[in-house]
């Protein structure tokens, strides 16, 4: 694939920004339709209770109220909230869009009030009286798995939803041959994704046309359309889903929610537009959470540091119900259990349990941060037990560049990698040897300074299609309009990643036209051919490849027409800087001129199809595996337990970089979230299933002054999986950062005999350990 490197590889400023920095973008709540009604929800205040009765009369009679709906009104009329990732042998409860008979988590939708304005809707929601009979609450995942635990879903007879095993190799032999077995119990605390824009839905129905339009703050407009069509019984071709400007997702909007279906249904009942905008409190209670695993990792190792086997026994917190991909998240952990090491035998034993909490699902990294954290933590433990430097232990177990494609015992084939190169670069940038000397000096002065290294590999751009319930491809249509302006319709659905810019860079270079002459359209199922969406760091590697291949086809077609008009053969023409050259008499044609002729069709070859448009659906034959090394230097204040990050370096290899500015932005944001998991964030429920961190007042969302300046560097190992050579970078920072920070803080505490501390590493916890 040939590019003109005017844009690709350059730090191009974003084309999205002019509207966003002037407040002129349109998020769901910014879309205003005449006569819109507003919806407020009554949500369960109990984590587990039977609903004895619901009194709605007062609400129905309140000023401005148009309708009130409860579970009884929707039973059998709206399909269940779907899960696309439940294995056939999984025990799964029904999840109606409004609770019927009982509630199983605080925040579950119980009733919906529709009124002429949002204040009135909320006033009326207060008037609904629900009589609950509280039931025993199950919040602890280890307790939930025990046979004597109260059962949340009686019809299932157990809280254990699924027992899942994965891995290969002779695990018993590995442990039998080991010189040493190192084990570590780890908690991956629940996190709240907290996109700055909460969810929101606007729905409008046209009874004559039988057309339902749904605007939703989603990462997956097409998949949402398909599932909503099934839930509502609306023909899919009469349902239009629009993801307008979307204010962040991080996986939390990679889902199909009760509210989305309910708003569509209410719009159809009332024949007026209806809107619901999630409050932050609702967002924290009822939008999916991430992580939620407690497990023990055991590693079989030889005295020289060679890894022989790894076993991970884990209990995973599903929450009360299954959302779209809930049970799949720990399967990703299982797939990444080899990390960036050669481990001949791997075994995952995963017990998935229901608890009285909101469902977990994909949050930035989705299963991979868990894998990386457990491996990178246990590698430090192994190094300590063997008296080795943690860097040397890692280096010893890397596959060499010539061993790629590299098959792991966890069941994947890594595409390409040079792990030692990224490690060496990181060590060189920080001057690792000197760092250790400085640390020794600091320790001699009684300071608690630690160095944490994490070498990670992750899985992105998942394909081929059999690996995802939705399919693993994505699509692009590229058209050159008669004027020569290019329009790209992409099946991915960016919400902050900057793909409008990245895709314009690709098309601009391939067509030799100005970046600003390329319009990238996304997120509207009536404008864009079917696509899968933006998640799992797939947008560029899969969606971008589709764009590039479609553009290549445009150029090939344009060449045919140019040769015809220039009265020469195609072979003698070359396409340079947007112009076909090489014809006799130095005649040339620009792509714009060709586009005009392709549409006018007055002078085309006999077999030439008018127009200049190409559509391509790209399905990768494998996933991509970005990797890198993160190094953190941290100091713990003995007096307060506060952690100060003295230095943070990330050397990431995401393959070919189309726009280093966007790459840096993704890595920064990723590190911030990973570091925040290590130091601050935790969704805390009390024993009654009440979310104690249910507002931004209480949830430890990181602020600017709590984060350090990050140093970035990179190596570039292109992937052979797609012609762009791009691997994906949306989640790398999050995956690499948590273990780097944890390893640094725990290394700082090592002189006190501390071997492990569970996250988050908050001052109080550390202060208690020190004192």
């Amino acid at each position, binding site marked *: 694939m040939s590019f003109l490197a005017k844009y690709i590889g350059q730090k191009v*400023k*974003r084309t*999205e*920004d*002019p509207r*966003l*920095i*002037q*407040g*002129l*973008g*349109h*998020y769901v*709540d*910014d879309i*205003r339709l005449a006569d819109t009604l507003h919806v407020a929800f009554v949500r369960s205040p109990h984590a587990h209770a039977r609903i004895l009765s619901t009194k709605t009369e007062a609400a129905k009679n309140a000023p401005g109220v148009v309708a009130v709906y409860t579970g009884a009104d929707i039973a059998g009329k709206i399909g269940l909230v779907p899960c696309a990732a439940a294995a056939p042998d999984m025990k799964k409860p029904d999840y109606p869009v409004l609770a019927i008979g009982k509630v199983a988590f605080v925040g579950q939708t119980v009733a919906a009030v529709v009124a002429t304005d949002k*204040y009135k809707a909320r006033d009326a929601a207060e008037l609904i009286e629900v009589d609950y009979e509280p039931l025993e609450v199950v919040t602890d995942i280890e307790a939930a798995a025990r046979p004597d635990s109260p059962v949340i879903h009686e019809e299932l007879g157990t809280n254990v939803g699924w027992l899942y095993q994965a891995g290969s190799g002779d695990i018993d032999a590995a442990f039998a041959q080991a010189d040493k077995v190192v084990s570590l119990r780890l908690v991956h605390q629940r996190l709240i994704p*907290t*996109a*700055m*824009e*909460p969810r929101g839905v606007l729905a409008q129905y046209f009874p004559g046309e039988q057309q339902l339009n749904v605007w939703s703050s989603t990462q997956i407009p097409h998949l949402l359309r398909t599932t909503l069509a099934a839930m509502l019984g609306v023909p899919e071709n009469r349902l239009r889903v629009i993801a307008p*400007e*979307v*204010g*962040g997702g*991080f996986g939390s909007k990679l889902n199909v929610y009760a509210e989305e279906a309910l708003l569509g249904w209410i719009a159809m009942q009332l024949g007026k537009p209806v809107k619901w*905008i999630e*409050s*932050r*409190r609702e967002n924290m209670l009822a939008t999916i959470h991430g992580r939620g695993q407690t497990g023990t990792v055991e590693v079989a190792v030889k005295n020289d540091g060679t890894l022989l086997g790894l076993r991970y026994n884990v209990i995973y917190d599903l929450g009360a119900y299954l959302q779209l991909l809930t049970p799949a998240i720990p399967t990703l952990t299982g797939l990444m259990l080899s990390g960036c090491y050669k481990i001949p035998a791997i075994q995952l034993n995963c017990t998935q349990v229901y608890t009285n909490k909101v469902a977990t699902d994909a949050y930035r990294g989705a299963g991979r941060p868990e894998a990386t954290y457990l491996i990178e933590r246990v590698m430090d433990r192994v190094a300590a037990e063997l008296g080795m430097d943690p860097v040397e232990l890692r280096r010893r177990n890397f596959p060499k560049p010539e061993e790629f494609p590299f098959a792991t015992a966890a069941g994947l084939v890594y595409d390409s990698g040079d792990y030692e190169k990224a490690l060496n670069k990181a060590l060189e940038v920080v001057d690792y040897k000197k760092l250790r000397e400085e640390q020794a000096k600091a320790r001699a002065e009684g300071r608690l300074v630690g160095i944490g290294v994490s070498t990670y590999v992750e899985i992105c751009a998942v394909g081929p299609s059999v690996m995802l319930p939705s399919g693993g491809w994505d699509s692009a249509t590229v058209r050159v309009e008669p004027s020569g302006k290019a329009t790209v319709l992409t099946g991915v659905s960016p*919400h*902050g*990643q*900057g793909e409008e810019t990245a895709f314009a860079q690709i098309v601009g270079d391939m067509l030799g036209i100005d970046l600003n002459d390329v319009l990238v359209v996304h997120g509207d199922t009536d404008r864009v051919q079917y696509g899968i969406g933006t998640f799992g760091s797939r947008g560029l590697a899969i969606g971008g490849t589709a764009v590039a291949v479609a553009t290549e086809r445009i150029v090939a077609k344009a060449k045919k027409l140019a040769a015809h008009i220039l009265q020469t053969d195609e072979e003698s023409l070359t396409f340079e800087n947007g112009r076909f050259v090489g014809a006799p008499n130095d005649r040339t044609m620009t792509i714009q001129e060709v586009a005009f002729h392709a549409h006018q069709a007055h002078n085309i070859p006999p077999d030439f199809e008018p127009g200049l448009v190409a559509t391509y659906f790209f399905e990768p034959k494998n996933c991509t595996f970005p990797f890198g090394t993160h190094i953190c230097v941290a100091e713990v204040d003995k007096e307060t337990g506060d952690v100060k990050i003295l230095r943070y370096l990330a050397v990431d290899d995401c393959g070919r970089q189309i726009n280093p*500015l*966007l790459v*840096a*932005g993704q890595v*920064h*944001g*990723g*590190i*911030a*979230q990973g570091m925040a998991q290590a130091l601050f964030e935790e969704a805390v429920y009390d024993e009654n299933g009440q979310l104690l961190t249910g*507002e*931004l*007042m209480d949830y430890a*969302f990181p*602020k*600017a*002054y709590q*984060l350090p*300046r*990050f140093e970035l560097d990179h190596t570039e190992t292109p992937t052979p999986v797609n012609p762009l050579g791009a691997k994906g970078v949306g989640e790398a*920072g999050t995956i690499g950062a948590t273990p780097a920070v944890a390893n640094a803080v725990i290394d700082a505490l090592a002189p006190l005999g501390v071997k492990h501390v569970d996250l988050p590493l908050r001052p109080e916890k550390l202060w208690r350990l020190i004192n």
Partner: protein
Amino acid sequence: MKIRLTINGRNYEGDVEPRLLLVHFIRDVLGLTGTHIGCETSICGACTVLLNGSAVKSCAVLAVQADGAEITTIEGLAQNGELHAVQEGFWEKHGLQCGYCTPGMIISSCALLKDNPSPTESDIRHGLEGNLCRCTGYQHIVDAVQYAAEKLKAQGAKAD
């Protein structure tokens, strides 16, 4: 209750419920939707506007409290089609991703630079503690504010 106020240099009159929040007045009554809502506890800062020159969270002010006030929202920053230096900084330095926190972040940065035209990195990070961003990790936001500080100083020097 009747209120009168000036927003982005234009005069507005409204008859509002006493409980109406200023942010809802700006967004829902006037249709200026660049000011966003990210929480209801005045923590996130997405709704920040300039009220008589000071950065305030418009979700924590009643519309009636703003009677007689002069307000600047994100839509009022660019003048005669030219971006404000802070807007330019956010664009130049990739200070935004999803863009949702951006209007509030830019408005707070304007107020910060008015009080402290030459802020250190630490000044900026502490000065923006009332504005949350989930996308950027804040580093490019700091760079954007530093860029704007330089630009404003250069503009000031030119004006002198």
